[in-house]
């Protein structure tokens, strides 16, 4: 299972990077591949490529402010959430996102 994710928050200082770390830790524990793009105060980091978008099974979109370059993801199966939810409970967010793909 290949997951891509984008995180962002109003200040781009804390939530963005906490959510990114929490998602990576959870995905790793569950044995899923993951790439997380952060859209924070330092701009876009770890940008997700076209190829990675094509190969991904699911996009977890945790953008609390407008997503940058959203047209990239128009064909992705998307699980929409928030950084706060991920920080509080990344494991269930990852499970719910995976369920979304498996039930397609």
């Amino acid at each position: 299972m290949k997951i891509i994710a984008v995180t962002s928050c109003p200040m781009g200082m804390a939530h963005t990077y906490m959510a990114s770390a929490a998602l990576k830790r959870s995905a790793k524990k569950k044995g899923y591949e993951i790439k997380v793009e952060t859209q924070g105060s330092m701009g876009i980091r770890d940008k997700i490529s076209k190829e990675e978008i094509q190969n991904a099974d699911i996009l977890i979109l945790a953008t609390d402010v407008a997503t940058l370059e959203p047209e990239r993801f128009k064909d992705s199966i998307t699980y929409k959430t928030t950084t706060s939810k991920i920080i509080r409970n990344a494991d269930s967010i990852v499970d719910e996102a995976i369920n979304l793909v498996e039930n397609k």
Partner: protein
Amino acid sequence: MKIHEMINPKLININMKADSKNEVISKLIYLLEKDGRLLDKEQFTKDVMEREDSMSTNMGAMIAIPHAKSKAVRKSSVVFAHLESPVEWNEEGKVDLVFLLAINEAQHNVSHLETIATLATYLVDDDFKKALYDIKDAASIVKLIENYKGEEL
């Protein structure tokens, strides 16, 4: 992690007594003021409180991270308190570990932002949190943050 410009033992209170969120924030801001890190304490307090109203900084797991980018900050800083007993942060519950991030709005210093981002990743790491709880002196907290090697993600 290079964080010595942003934190020092004077910016840490590992046994803070406070009865409310406002008291915690005000005591943390006092530490910043005393260490010469603010240009305008009133303005900075206002900026932090506005930020609190716009989005919850209660991160769950007993941690809150109030933060503001502000013109009232002289030097970008991190100030930390381990509360003697937990306080109600908001409707999302109590916290007893609080990091207040004060970022100078004018000087867009990427290395400071990177430091904050790295610290943020530590705060979802249970081993790091456990160490924060266990440490009983301010200098060791600085060393922990400087030397922590989290799991490769």
